[in-house]
């Protein structure tokens, strides 16, 4: 069955939500995760630390270069993701809509390359 990466965009300039604001989002995401697991479509998911914690490694040249920060300057960064199985894009989009509503973030849906 096709697999899809559902990635959540984070804008680092957005205000950090207060604990009162973040608690219902955590709960909604937990509930959504449980639903994905129960459906049998769960592959993997995780939330990421901020880009301040990112390190970029470039070993394409003769000497590997290690630098602080993300590989591209962007307005938005990957905040977290799900990897799910879905019969087709329509099913993946249904999950993405629920995931987006749960985590209160925009979700990009990308298919994995078929084997």
């Amino acid at each position, binding site marked *: 069955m*096709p697999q899809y990466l559902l990635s959540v965009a984070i804008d680092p300039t957005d205000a950090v939500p207060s604990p009162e604001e973040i608690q219902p989002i955590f709960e909604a995401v937990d509930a959504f995760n449980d639903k994905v697991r129960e459906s049998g479509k769960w592959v993997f998911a995780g939330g990421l630390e901020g880009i301040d914690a990112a390190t970029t490694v470039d070993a394409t040249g003769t000497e590997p270069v290690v630098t602080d920060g993300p590989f591209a300057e962007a307005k938005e960064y990957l905040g977290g993701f799900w990897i799910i199985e*879905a*019969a*087709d*894009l*329509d099913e993946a*989009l249904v999950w993405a809509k629920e995931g987006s509503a749960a985590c209160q973030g925009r979700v990009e*849906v*990308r*298919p994995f*390359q078929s084997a």
Partner: protein
Amino acid sequence: MTQDLEAELTRIHREEYAVVVASLVRRFGDIDVAEDAASEALVAALEHWPTSGIPPNPGGWLTTTATRKAIDRIRRESNRDTKHQQAAMIIDPTPPADPGVVDDDRLRLLFTCCHPALSPEARVALTLKLIGGLTVEEIAAAFLVPDTTMAQRITRAKRKISDAHIPYRVPQAADLPARLGGVLAVVYLIFNEGYLSSSGADSIRDDLCLEAIRLARLLRALIPTEPEITGLLALMLLTEARRPARVAGGELVTLGEQDRGRWDRDLIEEGHALVRDCLAINRPGHYQLLAAINAVHTDAPAAADTDWGQIAALYDQLYVVSPTPVVALNRAVAVAELDGPVVALAAVDRLELSSYHAWHATRADLLRRLGRSSEAAAAYDAAISATDNPAERAYLTRRRGQLSAD
């Protein structure tokens, strides 16, 4: 080949192409395989039919031939590339969809072409290519882009359908209204691309209108229970009916000034009958209300006979389902006829539409009627610079010229 035979083959191509391609896409799950096989079948038809005659069921002949060509090709490729996955599709046990019901192959393919995960430009291009049977060159010419640009647009969209696994399926009941709305939007976009840009001398673009009408007829035959489809078909017929009177001497002619004797009475009659069908169902929607407004206009023997009260009332209803400034602008045009230009101008000035040429043109006309010539001239200038359409520019320029002569 005789002219008759050639015309007949063109007709069969246009009518049967979508049936053949859609049936093969369902069976083989690959648009390219389906299109290549359909083309090969058409070539075979061109070779055989002039001597053997056109078979009694040309669509069936084409589908059978194309299916055989596709299987041959997949066998060849699976021998060469051991594409087991594709070979497995040869014995796809899925029965063909029952034609005439919602589960029609063409309908599945149409929903794929109009999938919201594709860009609007790609939806239009794919629909014309796969359902309309137009060539890349024809579509490129209609949208005034180079052939290579259109070819890339279509190739990219087909790749996304394949890579992202966009399904060939009529959406589930819960999603159907929204997804059907997307399909109708594509059909109306095709129509408007042909209608709004037409200068009367550009037959490829005029063909887009006829193609959109054909698509709406097909949709209506496949989903007879949805009044918005009927509404869109009626809207396009009633608009198309006025085409012969819409441009004269390279200049746009407004509805009020059109020679109504040149309107196509057959199309108007059909459009009115469809609007009556919608009224009987009594589930009004965006396209049905637009069709009803056009029915009121085309019902008036002369512009002076127009029932503006009814038109304003219909725009009120339309604003409830589509609360957009463009609807409010069109409503104001009716208000001008009912309550005078002062009331209408106040309504128009409240709208934030300064990038829309029709807003400036409407203001210009209202200011002209109020005798505020210098303000009207400025509004005509703004309208002229906001549109690229030569017929519209010619009309606005003449109107502006008449102002300064006052």
